[in-house]
């Protein structure tokens, strides 16, 4: 089940082949939903679920899909899965779905999805495609959660909505950094992560 090659498929996207910080895909949503940890985590789980299942479905259909409409078929599969995720969130996590608002729908346009379907699922077996989907989804999610951790901690002084910076600090004059909540700081945080990552993986440097 987990041969050496499959392990590479699953774990590669977590670091050496990370979709966000190495391939620079899916940046848009990484900026939009990372002001708080909770929506970032829900977004990460949603994208992982969608990319894993879309990969499996496309991989199962790969020998039947007419080549001329393969992009359309991929889009239909992704769009259907995203709508299902959106409906489930609206039903069981209404507050989070309000915060994520249009960004759930925009998973459809997340480049990671089309990239994986086109580059991997169309030419691999379902189980490998599933692992690839999980790997890429988690690789995307890790970055989202790291960015959200710093933005929520420094921007709001909370983690998952719980106050972690003690009141005493505020009494001594500490202030939350309002800039962290705004989108530009997500870009800068992602850039810092890329910096650290590249400096530890010399082979990624050009």
């Amino acid at each position: 089940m987990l041969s050496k090659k499959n392990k590479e498929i699953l774990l590669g996207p977590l670091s050496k082949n990370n979709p966000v910080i190495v391939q620079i895909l899916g940046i848009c949503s990484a900026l939009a939903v990372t002001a708080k940890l909770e929506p970032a985590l829900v977004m990460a789980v949603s994208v992982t679920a969608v990319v894993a299942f879309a990969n499996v479905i496309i991989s199962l259909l790969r020998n039947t899909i007419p080549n001329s409409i393969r992009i359309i078929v991929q889009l239909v599969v992704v769009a259907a899965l995203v709508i299902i995720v959106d409906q489930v969130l609206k039903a069981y996590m209404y507050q989070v779905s309000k915060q994520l608002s249009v960004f759930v729908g925009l998973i459809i346009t997340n480049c990671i999805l089309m990239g994986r379907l086109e580059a991997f699922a169309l030419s691999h077996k379902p189980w490998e495609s599933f692992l690839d989907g999980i790997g890429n989804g988690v690789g995307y999610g890790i970055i989202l959660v790291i960015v959200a951790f710093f933005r929520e901690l420094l921007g709001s002084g909370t983690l998952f909505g719980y106050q972690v910076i003690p009141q005493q600090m505020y009494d001594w004059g500490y202030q939350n950094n309002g800039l962290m909540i705004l989108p530009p700081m997500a870009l800068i945080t992602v850039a810092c992560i890329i910096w650290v990552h590249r400096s530890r993986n010399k082979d990624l440097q050009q």
Partner: protein
Amino acid sequence: MNKQGNTYTIIYTSGMVIIVAFILAFAAIGLKPVQEKNIAIDKMSQILNSVNIASTPENAQELYGKYIDDSFVIDANGKLVKGESFAMNIADQMKLPEDQRTLPIFICTDNSGAPKYIIPLSGSGLWGPIWGYISIENDGNTVYGAYFAHQGETPGLGAEIDKPPFQKQFQGKHFFIDGAFTPIAVQKAGQKPQNGADYVDAVSGGTITSKGVQNMLQSCVKPYAQFLESLNSKNI
């Protein structure tokens, strides 16, 4: 069969579309009751917000039952008409001419005893719809509390209208000056409206959203003017 041929492609897409349509319709219908309950609870919590009662999704229903003890629908002359105020779509009502609208009102009796009258609002901001609720004390004039929400105003600028610092400004403002209906203005800090109306500070950098709030207050509360006046003469 030739997998690259036109016939195959057309059959393939038709089959795919039908299957996907079935799956989505099934998911949407299956989850609808739960979603509608969530939307209703969210609306309750917004109405409670306008009378300065904080609620969570867990206790909103209970608090709503406790504090909002009546609701009715009036027409532009202040007469009672038939209608279901909670389910009414305010945005649809706003499209009708002023004298044909049906106007829902919610009544809240909190611990202080005097009833507050809650009026729903609906308008448009810079990027999309904005809405809210404003509660008025039983003199039909003084604002008790206000709540605004938006769909997609600019974060940090126009989106500030859904934050307490902006909403708290409305408390104690008046809708009638010398017996004439003058809606509360939303003004750039340091400026005053010409007609002597009560005013609050606009959100800096959110001019169009702030104007939207002002227009919304004007257009949504105006049809209630007769009703508010009658409250005023009854209770003062």
